[in-house]
């Protein structure tokens, strides 16, 4: 069973990998995390590399540090912006690295290198509304000890990481009990609405000024330095030396003040990151780059193609496995229970978790997304195939047997046509669910309608969210309608007549 699954994966994924790279392999692959600063830095790197004539692909807004780190180590990315604190405290936390020199050595062992610092330290900090902090007399993190009733809302990453909330609580002995994990972008809005009183910030966040926040002083120096650097593969130097040299010119060019301004331009003034990066490169490095803005129609068309690819490939693969499994399940009730149970368990795995689990196996891009969608499609198809087959009336099954039709011919001429309405309904369900779930594929670099949704959430831009959400909803309706039409062609006429006469 497991073996069959793996085999299916590798076949399908081998084919889709080829399809996705038909435009020629880019020789520089840049990644960025799903927050604005990282995307701006990723854009700078992309444009600098492109200015040397290299073909560059920027995978924007990948869903978390681990995703990028894995992708870089596996050679699916060449370079992405990272922070020394993240490397020391999280990615290589087991090594207890004392300083950046030790960090460089440890990275070299992984085949990775790190640029000189870009110039700013984007460390964690805690912040609260200026007026409220003034009222309660809170200036430092230590001052929080006197107010155990405060409601804390921290980004999910901050809740989990080694130097995040648990360590902070211990070093300051903080008594607060009402501590929630939520999306970083939502935390600001919670702060504004009053549902959250203290949140974690980055020291270069654009919102500090915009929301009127006070940054609490880290009086026991709990947070380590988070100097921004570019992390790249050692082999990148030999493959694209010119591009690398251009990229490394960023070192030492960005102060905290500059970075806050760039972040604010992108986040608050809604200037596209590519434009923000381009303007900065022209001013600071004298490099002029062209920003290609794409029209709404061509953006949506690109996302539609990516989305259809994810849904189509995963659904076809699921079909090839789930229908035979459904037939087996109908033949042997005990096996059927096992198959349905397993598919049901898969269905309960949160999609984000499943995507992240796939990354070490399948890397980033469309492959992990397709694999996850494939797994989610199995249950509805297997179940409907099995129930369609077991629902065939006894006298029909007996007649087919008594005629002397061999088992395979019975399956093909009688059982499957009779179960076809149910099987089709199962595929339809799987397809519609897939259209929705595929929006999460953007988190692992698979593109699709999730990309504008992700960007829209990050920038608090409803227009962008709708740019992904509306086509996704329309596609779901179209897919559903298409299956109705397919049903009218594929479901035998005699069965439709029967359904009509029964409904009368």
């Amino acid at each position: 069973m497991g073996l069959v699954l793996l085999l299916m994966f590798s076949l399908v994924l081998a084919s889709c990998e080829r399809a996705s790279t038909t435009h020629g392999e880019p020789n520089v692959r840049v990644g960025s995390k799903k927050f604005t600063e990282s995307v701006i830095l990723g854009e700078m790197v992309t444009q600098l590399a492109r200015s040397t004539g290299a073909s560059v692909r920027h995978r924007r807004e990948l869903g978390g540090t681990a995703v990028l780190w894995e992708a870089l180590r596996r050679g699916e990315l060449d370079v992405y912006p990272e922070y020394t604190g993240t490397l020391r405290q999280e990615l290589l936390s087991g090594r207890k690295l004392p300083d950046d020199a030790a960090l460089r050595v440890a990275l070299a062992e992984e085949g990775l290198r790190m640029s000189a610092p870009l110039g700013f330290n984007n460390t964690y900090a805690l912040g609260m509304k200026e007026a409220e902090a003034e009222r309660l007399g809170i200036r430092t993190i230590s001052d929080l000890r006197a107010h155990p009733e405060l409601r804390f809302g921290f980004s999910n990453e901050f809740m989990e990481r080694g130097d995040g909330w648990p360590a902070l609580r211990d070093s300051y002995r903080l008594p607060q009990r009402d501590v929630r994990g939520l999306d970083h972008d939502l935390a600001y809005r919670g702060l504004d609405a009053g549902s959250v009183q203290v949140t974690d910030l980055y020291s270069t966040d654009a919102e500090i000024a915009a929301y009127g926040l006070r940054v609490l002083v880290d009086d026991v120096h709990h947070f380590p330095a988070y100097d921004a650097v570019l992390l790249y593969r050692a082999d990148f130097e030999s493959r694209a030396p010119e591009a690398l040299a251009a990229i490394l010119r960023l070192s030492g060019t960005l102060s905290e003040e500059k970075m806050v301004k760039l972040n604010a331009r992108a986040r608050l003034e809604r200037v596209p990151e590519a434009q923000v990066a381009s303007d900065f490169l022209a001013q600071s490095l004298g490099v002029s780059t062209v920003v290609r803005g794409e029209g709404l129609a061509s953006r949506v068309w690109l996302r539609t193609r990516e989305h259809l690819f994810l849904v189509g490939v995963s659904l076809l693969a699921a079909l090839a496995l789930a229908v035979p499994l459904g037939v087996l399940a109908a033949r042997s009730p005990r096996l059927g229970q096992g198959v349905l149970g397993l598919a049901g368990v898969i269905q309960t795995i949160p999609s984000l978790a499943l995507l992240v689990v796939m990354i070490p196996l399948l890397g980033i891009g469309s492959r992990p997304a397709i694999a996850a969608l494939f797994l989610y499609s199995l249950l509805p198809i297997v179940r409907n195939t099995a129930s369609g087959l077991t629902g065939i009336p006894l006298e029909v099954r007996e007649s087919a047997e008594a005629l002397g039709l061999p088992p395979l011919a019975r399956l093909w001429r009688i059982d499957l046509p009779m179960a076809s309405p149910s099987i089709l309904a199962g595929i339809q369900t799987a397809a519609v669910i897939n259209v929705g779930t595929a929006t999460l594929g953007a988190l692992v670099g698979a593109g699709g309608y999730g990309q504008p949704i992700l960007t829209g959430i990050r920038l608090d831009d409803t227009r962008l969210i709708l740019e992904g959400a509306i086509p996704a909803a329309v596609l779901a309706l179209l897919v559903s309608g298409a299956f109705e039409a397919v049903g009218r062609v594929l479901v035998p006429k005699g069965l439709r007549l029967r359904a009509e006469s029964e409904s009368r």
Partner: protein
Amino acid sequence: MYALQDVSKRFGTTQALHSLNLTLPTGRTTVLLGPSGCGKSTLVRLLNGLLHADTGQVLYAGKPLPTDAKALLSLRHRVGYALQGGGLFPHLTGEENVTLMAQHLRWSAARTRERRDVLVELTRFPAEALARYPAQLSGGQRQRVALMRALMLDPEVLLLDEPLGALDPLVRHELQADLRAIFARLRKTVVLVTHDLAEAGFLGDDIVLMREGRVVQQGSLVDLETRPADPFVTRFIQAQRLAPGNGASA
């Protein structure tokens, strides 16, 4: 054609057939008669291997029924089968139901058409209704399609399990007459299951009266009436003769 030796069948805790011996003569129509639950449908399903006997053996043309799947399929090609309601495939037209096996066995179109035409004439089925789906056919027409389907490969034996069970009295009466004519013309070995005494007497050369998984008596209707082997035979006959609205003259 068939000989059953010490055959018994049990479903879970229910003994459907007690050990019985029975011979079904070639070229004649034998009716398995009895109240519901007497084992007559179980018995007919032993004859084409839809069920396997727990004990004893079923001999077909002197040889035990094959157990391997392939030989069993070819036996079923020689034993036509139709059950109550027809058991038609709802996704196929009447014609497709009838010719399904011929198609599967790759008969030529001409041979299939020729055989179909013979059957349409034999069963007095309206040819224009062949293109209809089972849902568009009347009960009697469905039964005629089922009969054509059972006869398509020109089998040696025809097994009919309550073929007229679900029909209204007029259609039933008409089909009974047609069936008798068909049996007389084909001279095949026919085994027909019914609970209706009049139908048994009208269609059967030979009647096997069953009760609770045992054969009570085998013989002609006259034998059963004049020389009952058991008081149950008389009671069964009288119950049906006296039943209001059930004319013995049918």
